[in-house]
């Protein structure tokens, strides 16, 4: 088992998804149990399904100085960076530590593949059209390279791309770099946007629901895809005494199958126990868990059993995919933000869409929103390839 870590301050965070731009929109939607999914209107020949699309991305081109990075994913990143004063917080961190002493670790599943797809739709004599002959948007590091340029960061910069656990694992990478003294702070986060690859890809695996996704409902029919951007600033605890804390994280592999979870949730449980050990916590101390809860048949079955065998009924659990859709590589940061909102506002979001609970779900499930003190909150993120991560957050010690 790993050694406990020194908690880090989450001194700023922001999220943009189908629920709105910035944390206030998200808190309002969660409190009102108002989901953000809509009938699929993305692309020329949309599949009959529901999506979590972010409003306003089309109307928000990048500033001219960043034109080389222009694409939907980087637009969403830029839109996200402008919420909740995050740009100013990043600037303040640069002024405090220096641009080379701040790491940038971002998660994404498909980055700007939408731009590559667009290029293939309008090839000119077998070549990318001239306006898309930009090498920076045809590779998975596009997001991180753009954000490094946009924020003026000059420290280590890494993209983590482990499918749906990507932007949870960025917290682990950042913590290691800070612990080793290689940097003093880190901007972490993730962005993924709707694109043909994921809509038709998940459709090919028969994992897309024709209706709004219903996580942990007995009649769930699969997932709804979404898009989102989220960022957080991590510093040593002394730098922000009142800020919520990253208490721990865990990472583990299923070693089972490329696209279905381990039947007993082995990797998920290892990640969860690793996170608790790093945070120095017992399961019974956890007040809220934001579940991976994709509404796929298998994920929810395995995850419900995991929660049932590890946590007491006093631990509350819910999936928020019914609000945002599954935002893939951005799901880790979106749901980390929801865990942080639960801590800050004493509100456990209800498991939207679970109208008829799957009998596998135990008494831990919060089917409706609950107002209560939340001191410790976890977030689960599991990805293709059996890639599992769990994050532990807590209030600053009084």
């Amino acid at each position, binding site marked *: 088992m790993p050694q406990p870590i020194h908690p880090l301050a989450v001194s700023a965070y922001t999220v943009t998804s189908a629920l709105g731009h910035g944390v206030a929109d998200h808190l309002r939607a969660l409190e009102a149990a108002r989901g953000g999914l809509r009938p699929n209107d993305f692309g020329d*020949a949309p*599949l009959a399904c529901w999506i979590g699309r972010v409003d306003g991305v089309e109307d928000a081109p990048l500033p001219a100085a960043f034109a080389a990075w222009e694409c939907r994913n980087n637009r969403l990143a830029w839109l996200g960076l402008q919420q909740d004063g995050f740009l100013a917080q990043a600037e303040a961190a640069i002024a405090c530590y220096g641009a*080379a002493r701040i790491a940038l670790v971002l998660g994404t599943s498909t980055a700007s*593949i939408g731009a*590559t*797809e667009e*290029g*293939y*739709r309008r*090839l000119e004599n*077998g*070549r*990318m059209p001239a306006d898309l002959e930009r*090498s920076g948007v045809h*590779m*998975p*590091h596009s997001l*991180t*390279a753009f954000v*490094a340029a946009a924020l003026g960061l*000059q*420290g*280590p*910069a*890494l*993209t*983590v*791309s*482990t*499918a749906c656990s990507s932007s949870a*694992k960025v917290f682990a*990478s950042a913590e*290691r*770099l800070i*612990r*080793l*003294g*290689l940097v003093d702070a880190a901007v972490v986060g993730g962005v993924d946007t709707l694109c*043909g*690859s994921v809509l*038709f*890809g998940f459709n*090919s*695996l028969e994992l897309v629901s024709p209706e709004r996704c219903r996580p942990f409902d007995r009649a769930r029919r699969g997932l709804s895809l979404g898009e989102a951007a989220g960022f957080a600033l991590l510093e040593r605890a002394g730098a922000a005494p009142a800020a919520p804390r990253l208490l721990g994280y865990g*990472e*583990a*592999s*299923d*070693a*089972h199958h*490329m*696209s279905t979870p381990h039947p007993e949730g*082995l*990797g998920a449980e*290892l990640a969860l126990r690793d996170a608790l050990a790093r945070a120095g916590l017992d399961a019974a101390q956890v007040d809220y868990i934001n579940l991976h809860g994709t509404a796929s048949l298998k994920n929810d079955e395995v995850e419900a059993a995991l929660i049932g065998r590890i946590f007491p009924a006093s631990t509350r659990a819910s999936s928020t995919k019914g609000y945002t859709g599954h935002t893939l590589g951005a799901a880790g940061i979106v749901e980390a933000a929801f865990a942080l909102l639960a801590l800050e506002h004493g509100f456990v979001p209800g498991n939207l869409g679970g109208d008829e609970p799957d009998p596998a779900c135990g008494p831990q499930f919060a089917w409706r929103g609950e107002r209560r003190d939340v001191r410790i909150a976890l977030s689960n993120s599991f*990805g*293709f*390839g*059996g*890639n599992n991560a769990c994050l532990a957050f807590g209030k600053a010690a009084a």
Partner: protein
Amino acid sequence: MSMRVHVEGIGLWSPQLADFAALHAQLQGTPPPAPAGKPPASTLPANERRRAPESVLLAIEVAGQAVAMSGRAPAELACVFGSAFGDLSITDYMCETLAHAPTELSPTRFHNSVHNAAAGYWTIATGCHAPSSAVCAWHDSTGAGLLEAAAMALADQRPVLFVCSDVAGAGPLAPITRSTQAFGCAFVLAPETSPRTLATLSLQLAPRAATPMDGGALPAAWSEANATAAAALPLLVVLAGRDRHCQMAAAGGLGLEILMENVA
């Protein structure tokens, strides 16, 4: 702030070099015979080997070589798989299919398209439940990935397998990625010396050098054909005992200074 990691195993594959021993031979002036066909990737069971895309075969081949050299059990190693571009043939297939017949997309090709496909196949084949990751940083993927893997080895005091590999570009992406042939390398990194230690590396972040390192005595065409080769060959030359120092790009303005302290 410098980090010391201990190299216990080295894997290498390109259309010219079948393994690290072949690089030694090349540096000694006796160019080795080119490997025949695809990377063998014998760590994978036969049925998985048939389904796995080229990028996965390449990554698994070099990973298997490095772990075999280390003598470690693969299941005990955390792993970090780096690649600048992922599987460019699958990207070409996906984008081509989406442009013309999106509902005909192959589910197997889709799940093989994730950047962590190699990490998934590797952990499944070796029964590894340790943390696994897949990372990239464009032309700096090797340096940024090495930093990630070394940080994991030192922060958690555990051995880590680091793989970095890229295949050739395909279709309209070929001229954009400028990746014209495959190259992969892998290293088993440990936080402490042991009888398995082949070399000790001191790593330090520093301003990026104005002129990138080249592979010295190696053919320039190898570096020009693949960004990962360009980044990794100078380190492999160091590990072959032909040099003591190199710098890898780790991010925009950041380099990773690498100094070899001793050779077993």
